[in-house]
């Protein structure tokens, strides 16, 4: 069965590639931003770029949650452990992200700090139940798909009166970030970046629905196609974007009709709305302060907000000198433009966040060796 499927996939990929070559107008360039790290990963892993004609480009966006968290927030998390002696629960991806002073959560854990890697917010609640005399903080990060599980944990902690549990919220919002990129001077003033259309992330969209994209598709006249994470999904969506651009349309289309509706998962949305509210502003690595782009815990649940419980200060810290993550996250530079790439900075010893997560652009470049290949070859056959 497996070989039949593989064959079918390869054949479909070739057919899609041929359709894209046929429909892409050689007179114009198509710069398509994949917002989400999941897409970045699929594009590199399967060499999707190599199947595209030379005027269709993927621009990698800031949709890797680990990558966009600024250094200051990781410094905050480290302070929580070092100054308040909390048990810090975190998703594994965060452990190796470099913080200020050459620290990382992994390094201070090795030095004896009580940092626990969790797979789910349920694990964090369990740790809090098992350690009633310790403060337990869940380091919450991520886009719209990871926010509802945090909301569930906060509500559960309230119901169980789990007084030693709190959440350090760093949840961020996809549409706000896309809008910020479109409003950036690099894009607006026709300077270094041009973005003609977007791939919308499928899982995020299964929660928020396709409606939140309608505003900026209209306002900025850029088409959006919500795409699944498999290579064929990405190719199919690229074709849909090219068609929209050729026809002068800028609509929100859905390649992933299997699961994404216009309304999204209303149960998850109401959970989030009950527990979280918009922050006036939040710092993103690469994008700087972005208005209304993140969530904070509502007053009604302030008792479970680690920022309030431990008076977490605002820290503005800078990235490692020479690290180009901020420009890479805006689509202005590529990993190979960074002098540290592959020399000082590798996945084993990351200098910046983009090299840590497998969804980060630098890690994807490194792992899949694209930087060693010529920019273009339309002949590669094993890509799907």
């Amino acid at each position, binding site marked *: 069965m*497996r070989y039949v*499927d*593989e064959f079918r*996939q390869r054949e479909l990929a070739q057919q899609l590639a041929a359709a894209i070559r046929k429909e892409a107008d050689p007179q114009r360039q198509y710069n398509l931003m994949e917002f*989400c*790290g*999941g897409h970045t*990963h699929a594009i590199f*892993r399967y060499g999707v770029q190599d199947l595209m004609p030379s005027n269709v480009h993927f621009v990698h966006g800031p*949709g*890797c*949650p*680990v990558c966009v968290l600024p250094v200051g927030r990781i410094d905050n998390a480290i302070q929580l452990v070092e100054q308040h002696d909390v048990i810090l629960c975190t*998703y*594994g*991806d965060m452990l190796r992200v470099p913080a200020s002073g050459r620290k990382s959560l992994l390094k201070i854990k090795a030095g004896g700090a009580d940092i626990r*890697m969790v*797979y*789910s*917010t*349920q*694990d964090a609640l369990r740790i809090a139940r098992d350690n009633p005399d310790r403060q337990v903080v869940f380091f919450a990060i*991520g*886009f719209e*798909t*990871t926010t*509802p*599980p945090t909301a*569930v944990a906060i509500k559960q902690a309230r119901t169980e009166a789990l007084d030693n549990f709190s959440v350090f919220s760093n949840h961020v919002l996809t549409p706000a970030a896309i809008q910020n990129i479109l409003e950036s001077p690099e894009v607006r003033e026709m300077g270094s970046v041009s973005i003609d259309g977007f791939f919308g*992330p499928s*899982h*995020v969209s*299964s*929660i928020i629905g396709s409606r939140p994209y309608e505003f900026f598709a209209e306002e900025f006249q850029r088409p959006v196609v919500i795409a699944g*994470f*498999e*290579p064929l999904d990405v190719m199919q969506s690229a074709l849909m974007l090219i068609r929209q651009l050729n026809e002068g349309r800028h609509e929100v289309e859905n390649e992933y009709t*299997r*699961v994404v509706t216009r309304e999204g*998962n*209303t*149960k*998850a949305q109401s*959970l989030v709305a009950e527990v979280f509210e918009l922050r006036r502003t939040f710092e993103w690595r690469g994008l700087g302060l972005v208005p209304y782009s993140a969530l904070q815990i509502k007053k009604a649940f302030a008792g479970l907000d680690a920022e309030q419980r431990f008076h977490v200060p605002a820290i503005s810290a800078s990235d490692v000198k020479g690290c180009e993550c901020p420009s890479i996250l805006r689509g202005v530079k590529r990993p190979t433009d960074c002098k540290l790439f592959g020399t000082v900075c590798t996945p084993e010893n990351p200098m910046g966040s983009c090299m840590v*997560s*497998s*969804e980060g652009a630098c890690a994807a470049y490194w*792992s899949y060796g694209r930087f060693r290949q010529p920019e273009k070859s339309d002949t590669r056959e094993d890509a799907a």
Partner: protein
Amino acid sequence: MCLGIPMKVLQIDGFNARCEAKGVEREVSLFMLQDEEVKPGDYVMIHVGYAIQKMTPQEARSAWEIFDQMLAADGPPDTTL
């Protein structure tokens, strides 16, 4: 973190479900699918310990084939999937 893993539902107890994929069993929450009917034998997409959507067996299988190839190429999986 964006990717998620398809798993098969074995047993349901309230909002908790015992799910299985590749011989690995895990407790996951069905909290976000409470408006849908989920039963043992169904496939669900798991994201940080929570089921976020139902899938067909075909979708689950094709996602797993891709993961298999990734695992073969990349070593151990991303632990926060």
